[in-house]
C-alpha cells in the first residue's frame, strides 16, 4: 500500500492529471492511496474515464513512485505535494495548480513578496538591462524574483536577483534536474546555491512544446505581481499574462520604444490597462512594500569623490547606452583621457560596459 505522499508523487507523473480531475477523483474515492489500491479495472467500472484510468496504470503505481523517488534522490530533489504545508500558499489558491511540485534548492520564505519577471527570449539591450537592474534592486529589498530560466529576459532577471543578493525561483518547463537551455548550466547552479528550481514535471522529463505554456501558469501562480519586460505581439510571454489575469494577479509592463518590435506587446498591455513600470518604486508600491525614505536616490551622483575628468565623463553616462566616441565628442577630452576615466569609473562600479563599446550608468 502506497503512502499518501507517494500516491501523490505517482499521480503527478500521470499525463493529463489536472487539478480538477484529481479533485474529482479524491472526492469520490477518498485519497490518492485508495486510487492506487483500486486499480485500473475497478476505476473504469466505477465510471472513471477509460483513457485516464489507462494512463494512470500504464505502470504500477508502486513502481512509478519508487522510480521517481530514486531519481529525486540522485539530484537532491524534494517533492512538495498539495497536502504538504510547505506548498506555496499563493500557488495553492490557483484553480489549476499542480498536484505537487519538485523542488531543488531551498524553499523561499512565503512571507516575502513574489514578483514574476517575464519577457522575450530574444530581448534587446534595453530589456536586458532593465530586467537586470530592476530585479537586482527588488531582490535587494527582499522581493523574491520568479522567472523561467529561459534565454534573454528570464536569465537577466535571475542574474539580477543573484547580483542583488536576493532570493530567486526558477520554474522550469522540464524536469528540475534537466538544464534547458543547456547554456544556462552555470546560471542554474548559482540559482540552486541561493534559491530554488521548481518544476511540476517528474525528474528527467525533457522539455517539449507543450510543457512551457503549462509552466507559465506556475510562474504567475507563485507570484503576487507579474512584470512583463518585453514581448512581441504574439509571444509566449502573453500566455503568462493570461494566466496571471485568470489567477487574479496584477500585471505590470515596461513601456518601450514604439518602433521596437519587442515592445509592441508590452505597450499594448499598458494600453489595455496594465500598470506601467517606470522605476522600482512603481513595482514596490504595487507589491505593498514600505519604502524607507532615508535612502534617497539622487544623492549618489554627488556623494562619491571623482577626479575632474572622471566627473566629466560620468556626467555623460546615463541609463541610455552611449559609445566611447560619443563621450569623446561630448566632453571634449582626448580619447585616452576618456578611456582612462571609463576604466576608473568601471572599477568604482559607477558605470557598466555593454557590448559594442557602450556604457550605461550602473
Amino acid at each position: 500500500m502506497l503512502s499518501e505522499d507517494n500516491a501523490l508523487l505517482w499521480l503527478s507523473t500521470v499525463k493529463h492529471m489536472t487539478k480538477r480531475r484529481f479533485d474529482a477523483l479524491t472526492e469520490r474515492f477518498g485519497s490518492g492511496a485508495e486510487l492506487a489500491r483500486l486499480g485500473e479495472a475497478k476505476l473504469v467500472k466505477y465510471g472513471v474515464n477509460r483513457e485516464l484510468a489507462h494512463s494512470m496504470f500504464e505502470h504500477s503505481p508502486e513502481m512509478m513512485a519508487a522510480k521517481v523517488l530514486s531519481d529525486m534522490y540522485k539530484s537532491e530533489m524534494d517533492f512538495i505535494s498539495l497536502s504538504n504545508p510547505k506548498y506555496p500558499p499563493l500557488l495553492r489558491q490557483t484553480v489549476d495548480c499542480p498536484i505537487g511540485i519538485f523542488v531543488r534548492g531551498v524553499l523561499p520564505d512565503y512571507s516575502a513578496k513574489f514578483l514574476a519577471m517575464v519577457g522575450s527570449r530574444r530581448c534587446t539591450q534595453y530589456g536586458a538591462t532593465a530586467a537586470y537592474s530592476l530585479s537586482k534592486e527588488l531582490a535587494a529589498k527582499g522581493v523574491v524574483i520568479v522567472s523561467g530560466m529561459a534565454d534573454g529576459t528570464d536569465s537577466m532577471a535571475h542574474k539580477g536577483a543573484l547580483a542583488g543578493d536576493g532570493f530567486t525561483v526558477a520554474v522550469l518547463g522540464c524536469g528540475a534536474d534537466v538544464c534547458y537551455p543547456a547554456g544556462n548550466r552555470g546560471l542554474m547552479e548559482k540559482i540552486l546555491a541561493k534559491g530554488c528550481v521548481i518544476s511540476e514535471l517528474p525528474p528527467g522529463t525533457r522539455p517539449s512544446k507543450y510543457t512551457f505554456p503549462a509552466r507559465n501558469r506556475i510562474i504567475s501562480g507563485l507570484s503576487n505581481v507579474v512584470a512583463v519586460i518585453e514581448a512581441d505581439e504574439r509571444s509566449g510571454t502573453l500566455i503568462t499574462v493570461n494566466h496571471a489575469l485568470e489567477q487574479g494577479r496584477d500585471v505590470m509592463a515596461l513601456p518601450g520604444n514604439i518602433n521596437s518590435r519587442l515592445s509592441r506587446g508590452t505597450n499594448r498591455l499598458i494600453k489595455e490597462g496594465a500598470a506601467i513600470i517606470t522605476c522600482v518604486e512603481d513595482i514596490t508600491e504595487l507589491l505593498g512594500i514600505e519604502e524607507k525614505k532615508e535612502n534617497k536616490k539622487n544623492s549618489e551622483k554627488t556623494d562619491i569623490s571623482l577626479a575632474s575628468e572622471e566627473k566629466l565623463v560620468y556626467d555623460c553616462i546615463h541609463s541610455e547606452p552611449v559609445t566611447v566616441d560619443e563621450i569623446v565628442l561630448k566632453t571634449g577630452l582626448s580619447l585616452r583621457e576618456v578611456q582612462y576615466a571609463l576604466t576608473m569609473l568601471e572599477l568604482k562600479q559607477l558605470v557598466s560596459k555593454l557590448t559594442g563599446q557602450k556604457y550605461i550608468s550602473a
Partner: protein
Amino acid sequence: MLAKIHSAALMGISGYMVDVEVDTSQGLPAFEIVGLPDNAVRESKERVRTAIKNSQFEFPSKRITVNLAPANTKKEGPAFDLPIAVGILVCMGIIKQQAVENTLILGELSLDGAVKCVDGVLPMVYSACERGIRRCFVPIENAREAAVVGGMEVVGISSLYEFIEICIGKRKAEVTEVDIDKLFEEGLNSGLDFSDVRGQESVKRALEIAAAGMHNIIMIGPPGSGKTMMAKRIPTILPDLTVNESIEITKIYSVAGLLRDRNALITQRPFRSPHHTISNVAMVGGGRVPKPGEVSLAHNGVLFLDELPEFSRGVLEELRQPLEDGEVTVSRVNGTMTFPANIMFVASMNPCPCGYYGYSDKCRCTSTQINKYMGKVSGPLLDRIDVQIEAAAVDYEDMQSSIKPESSADIKKRVVAAHEIQKQRYRDENIYFNSQLSAAQTEKYCHLGKAENELIKAAFERLNFSARAYHKLLKLARTIADLDGGGDINVRHIAEAIQLRNLDRRLLY
C-alpha cells in the same frame, strides 16, 4: 660533343644551381632527359625541338641526352626549356661554349621560339649570385625582378633567335638595371590613408597600439562599421620596409608566381585578405611541391581574416604555429619546406550570426546561437590575439563630422618611434617587439609600481577578467607606455590596456 649550361631550380623559396648538360652523339635520333624531370620538364623536348626549328635552325638528327644535375632532386616547371635549347645549339656549334660560360640561363620556350616568363626568378638568380655567377639571361618580363640582385648583369631576352644573335655578337646585349631607392620612393603612395576613416577613434587608437607593439588584433563589430576599411590601412602606419625585408617578400611572391604584373620589388608591406572559403593548403602553403600560402604571402605585412568565425576550424587551427613561430613548415613527399610567416594578424568578426547583436533591435539571435558563433574561434587562437576591440556602428553624424581625422603619416611617426624604443630595449634578447615577450620577459620588462598593481588587482576582481589576460594586459600597457616615450608603465597605460581586452570580459550583456 658536350655542352654545360648553368640554370637553377627552386626549393621552397630559395633557389639552387642546376647544371644542364647536353650531349649529342651518333646513333638513332633520340631525345632523352634524365635527372628526375617532371612532366613539364619532359615535355620541354617538343618545345625545344619546335622552337629551334622555328628560329631557322635545323634540329640535329642525333642522339641527344640531357642531364639535369644534381640528379637526385626532382625538377619541375618549364624554366629549363631555354638552357636545354642553348645546350643543343652549343653542341651544334652555333653558339660557342665560352659565350655561355659563367652565365645563368632561365626561360620557357614557346613553339615560335619566343621566351616566356617563369616563376621564382629572383631567388634563383640570388642563389646563382651567391655561387659567383655574374651574368644571367632571363625572360624579358622577369628582367627587372632579377636586376634587383646586386652585382649581377641581367639581360632580358624575348626570343631564342635574339639570344643566339647576342651570343654570336650580331646584337648588343641590353643590360637591365633598376634603381632600388627609386622603386621605394615610387611604391610609397598606395592612395590609402587613415584620414579617410571618419569616426571610430577608439578602434583607430587600438590599431595604432597594435601596430606599435606588433600585437595581433581582432575587431568585433556590426556590418558597415568600417572594420575592413580600417584593416586595409594598417600597412600605411607600419614602418617602411627595409631592402632586406623587401627582397624577402619579393622572393616569396616570385616563387608563388604573383610578381608578373608588378614592379621589380615589392616595396610595400603586403596586405592579404583571403576569402573565408580558403583551404588549409592555400592558407599555410602546400601542394605536391610545397608553395607558400597566404600566411607567407603576408610575410612582413598584414594577414587580414574578415568574418573570422566563417573560416573552417581546420584553417584557423593551422594558423597557430605560424602565429607563434613566425614561420610555417610544410611537409610533403617532395620535401619539407619552411616558409617565413612573420605577420601581424588582423581579424574581424560580427558579434553574432546576424551581425547586429548589441547594436540594433534587428538582432534576433538567441544567446545559444551567439555562444555557438563566438565559440567557433577557439581559445588557443584567441590566446594569440592581444588586442580585442569592438567597433561600434558609425552613424551619419560621424560621417559628416568636420573634425579632420589624423593622417597615416602622423600615426606612423609614433609607431616608428615606439618600434625604435623596443629595438633598443630588446637588443640583447632574441625578440624585437613587446608582443613577442615571454612570460619571464614580461615580468622583467613590465615592472609595475604599487598603484599599478592595485589597479590590475581591482580590474581582475571587479571586471570579470579571466586569468590568462594578465600577461596580455602587461604587454599592451608596455606598448602604450612605449608610444608615450618608453618610460615606466603607469596607471593610465594600464587603464587604457584594460579597454583593449573586450573578449576577456564576461560582459553582462
